């Protein structure tokens, strides 16, 4: 149970930092809403709803990338990550705490983004919401690990999208599929499987990312 207390303390710290510095969430909100506005004008009149759905997923994915690129900013500063790595808690708690805070930011951004999408394009289906929730889990799991890896490198701005976007392809396939398919169950299943698989992989391998 101390494990979850550690995770809670770490996630709470991230939310507190965000509340103080407002580094991440406002940027994500601004980005996702303005992207949707642009997309509204990008699509020619009479375009299919399918195109709009695709664009929504583009917006969500890059919003997530924006959030992820900032996720370890506070730890990168003056090597604070060392302080966390030194603490006796299991290192995977650092990953889980960070993933939870990213999940919270993503969720909050989407609480605004999905109504905006409904306003500009078309109503949001339950399958789409389900797809977004499952996609968020996968994005947070994989993204946190990759963001930690990228943080250690000097080319982090380049490295994170380079690592993240290929690994996010199954998420996009599952998400778009769930949003447009007549049988979203299969795609939601794919997303669920991806989440479970990558959550386990990332949970187990985070230790090696933050230690030399």
């Amino acid at each position: 149970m101390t494990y979850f207390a550690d995770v809670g303390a770490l996630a709470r710290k991230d939310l507190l930092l965000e509340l103080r510095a407002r580094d991440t969430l406002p940027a994500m909100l601004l980005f996702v809403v303005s992207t949707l506005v642009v997309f509204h004008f990008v699509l020619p009149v009479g375009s299919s709803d399918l195109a709009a759905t695709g664009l929504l997923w583009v917006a969500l994915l890059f919003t997530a990338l924006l959030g992820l690129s900032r996720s370890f900013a506070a730890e990168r500063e003056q090597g604070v990550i060392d302080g966390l790595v030194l603490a006796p808690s299991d290192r995977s708690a650092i990953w889980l705490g960070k993933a939870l805070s990213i999940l919270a930011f993503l969720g909050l951004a989407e609480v605004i983004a999905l109504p905006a999408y409904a306003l500009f394009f078309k109503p949001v289906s339950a399958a789409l919401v389900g797809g977004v929730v499952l996609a968020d889990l996968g994005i947070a799991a994989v993204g946190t690990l990759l963001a930690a890896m990228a943080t250690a490198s000097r080319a982090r701005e380049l490295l994170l999208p380079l690592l993240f976007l290929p690994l996010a392809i199954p998420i996009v396939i599952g998400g778009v599929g769930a949003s447009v398919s007549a049988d979203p169950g299969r795609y939601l299943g794919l997303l669920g499987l991806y989440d479970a698989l990558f959550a386990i992989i990332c949970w187990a391998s985070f230790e090696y990312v933050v230690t030399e």
Partner: protein
Amino acid sequence: MIRARALEKRYGDTRILRGVTLDVGSDDFLLVTGPNGSGKTTLLRLCAGLAAPTRGELEVGVERGRLGYLGHEPLVYRELTALENLDLYGRLYRVPDRRERTGMLLERFGLWDVRHARAGSFSRGMLQRLALCRTLLHEPSLLLLDEPYSGLDDEGEQLLDRELTERAGRASFVVATHEPERLEHFASARLALV
């Protein structure tokens, strides 16, 4: 507590530590000296497990939670207050009576009045005091201190002297310093890096 044999660290082609051998028993006080760039910080980071040796053996016979590491950086979040930072570490280290203990340390290091100020607004010396609070918070049994006096004023130096005097002989120390005179009377062993 620490046993190192022919310890070596390389960054690329540069060898930093050239076969360091040392033994630090429980309650020993090892003073590490050497010019800038001689590898004092590297040695402490190896002992803390923050870096891995390239060659040689290194055993640190104390679990992570019993280790106190004071580095060049204070390892605190600048956007959190002094109190919030110590509270976070207190939780992670499962410090009993966390609140009393953080309060007591802040008081001792003269930071009580600024406990609600962001660490980012602290001066160099105040940050060093906060870093010392963080290091001592969980009463470690092995202390790795990298230039602990750096940035401290006279009062701060005396406060640190007091803490060290209290703990010398009751915990193991590895202290890197450029002022060995100040710590000479604590030292039970010396290591001069070149």
